[in-house]
């Protein structure tokens, strides 16, 4: 199997930090007890789960009682949205954006068939929301506003607290999909308007299959998974102990490194982006230049097609992506870029590079070396060109 690559697809998933693996291992081997058990062999594991809960709470600036462990971002998003609606059965309106992750968007689409009205806020060509449109959409019937903190495809960051202030004025619940933001933007739920916040482990160097949902104390919650009453009744199912321990450790490491790591990633990202724009003709950055995650750049290469670019990058051992990684089976161009009104000439040839704290200078150099040749080669094949 292929072990090494230049991994610039960290918004799809990240490498598990070796310290995280090390922290998890004892719970995959020796300490396999069920934390709900009456014996100390199981009970000791319960303490470890709560320690992880504290670590996650610390990263979010939350209280540990506000953290529910889930199986990942999708479950978190689904659970939050359904909980908000179940808790306010009389309200039938949802506000979200056109650029959400499918874990929010597809669910909202489905809720339209169940008697809910959904407003999908538009974005401008830079990927930004219009707060007036939000303001105009909010009514007393609005149960929930679900808006992502940062976009997975472009990295564009929304002004969450400004949004939240307006949401709160209208008495709606405010859910934030922060899967891409946690670990890259400091969080402080203690001084926030957010009622519920989704995070996912595998985006912050914890393993796949674990995540957390923050639910503000006092917010009425109705569980998605029903059963044995684990997580104080808010998420049933035997807890994924190794995953939880891993998420706790990953949260601790993110909190420790967030400042220096994001500064470093931003520098590398900026160099990558600026050099590509300067050296390759007919390409453009998709998304606002500053209201953006430090690790993400989405660049559109005119007249050529994304998958073809990716396969050439792949041949050079470089991992990147076009659109989201959910369903590589999808042939549709990115709904995010389309919402931004990106012209077709660019839309189909847009590539996302997403960095992590493991990204090196030398890796960026390699990308910068091969990229011009790939673009040139594919443009030579293309029936389109600039005049």
């Amino acid at each position, binding site marked *: 199997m292929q072990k090494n690559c230049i991994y610039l697809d960290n918004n799809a998933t990240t490498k598990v930090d070796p310290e995280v693996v090390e922290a998890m291992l004892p719970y995959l081997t020796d300490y396999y007890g069920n934390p709900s058990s009456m014996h100390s062999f199981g009970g000791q594991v319960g303490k470890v789960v709560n320690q992880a809960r504290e670590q996650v709470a610390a990263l979010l600036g939350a209280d540990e009682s506000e953290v529910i462990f889930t199986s990942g971002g999708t479950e978190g998003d689904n659970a939050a949205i359904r909980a908000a609606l179940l808790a306010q059965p009389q309200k039938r309106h949802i506000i979200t954006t056109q650029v959400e992750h499918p874990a929010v968007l597809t669910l909202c689409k489905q809720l339209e068939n169940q008697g809910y009205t959904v407003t999908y806020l538009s974005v401008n060509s830079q990927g930004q929301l219009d707060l007036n449109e939000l303001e105009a959409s909010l009514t007393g019937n609005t149960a929930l506003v679900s808006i992502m903190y940062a976009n997975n495809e472009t990295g564009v960051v929304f002004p969450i607290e400004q949004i939240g202030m307006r949401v709160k004025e209208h008495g709606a619940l405010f859910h934030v999909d922060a899967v891409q933001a946690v670990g890259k933007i400091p969080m402080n739920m203690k001084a926030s308007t957010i009622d519920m916040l989704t995070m996912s482990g595998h985006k912050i160097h914890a393993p796949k299959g674990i995540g957390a949902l923050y639910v503000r104390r006092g917010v009425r919650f109705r569980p998605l998974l029903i059963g044995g009453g684990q997580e104080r009744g808010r998420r049933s199912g035997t807890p994924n102990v190794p995953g939880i321990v891993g998420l706790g450790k990953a949260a601790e490491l993110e909190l420790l490194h967030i400042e220096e790591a994001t500064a470093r990633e931003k520098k590398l990202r900026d160099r990558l982006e600026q050099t590509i724009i300067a050296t390759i003709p007919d390409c453009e950055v998709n998304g606002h230049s500053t209201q953006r995650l430090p690790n993400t750049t989405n660049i559109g290469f005119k*007249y*050529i*097609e*994304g*998958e*073809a670019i990716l*396969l*050439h990058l792949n*041949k050079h051992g470089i991992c990147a992506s076009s659109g989201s990684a959910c369903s*590589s*089976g999808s*042939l549709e*161009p990115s709904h995010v870029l389309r919402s931004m009104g990106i012209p*077709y*000439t660019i*839309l*189909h040839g847009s590539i996302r590079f997403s960095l992590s704290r493991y990204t090196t200078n030398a890796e960026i150099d390699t990308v910068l070396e091969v990229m011009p040749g790939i673009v040139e080669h594919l443009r*030579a*094949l*293309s*029936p*389109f060109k600039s005049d």
Partner: protein
Amino acid sequence: MWDYTDKVLDLFYNPKHQGVIEDKDEPGVKVAVGDVGSIACGDALRLHLKVEQDTETILDARFQTFGCTSAIASSEALIELIQGKTLDEALKVTNKDIASHLGGLPEAKMHCSVMGQEALLSAIYNYRGIKREAHDDDDEGALVCTCFGISESKIRRVI
């Protein structure tokens, strides 16, 4: 990740027939062009055929493709299949022949091979001066939007 055959990847990475054929008005030779798709749809193929008029033999062919791995590999495969054939023989080449020449394509990518067949038809029709019925909302000029015009029914029929 798509499950591409080695053949697909080889033709994608190392195409040998990309480009255009200039019409130099050689006696007894005619250059015909076929177009399909548009940049709006994300797929487009332009095919140049150089045909010996006496025998209607394809002397040379070149492609320009805007599209994914399968589209580029299918274009190259198409040309490998039609080189040296007469137009009538070439007309018998189907998208399935293209796909099997490639050692198969993922099911969801079969339509990329349809584009090759369509461009070939278009070029041959142009060569013979036969007008093809235009697609409904066909007002975009040379590269018309036919990727949804290759139409669901056509895709289903050929897969």
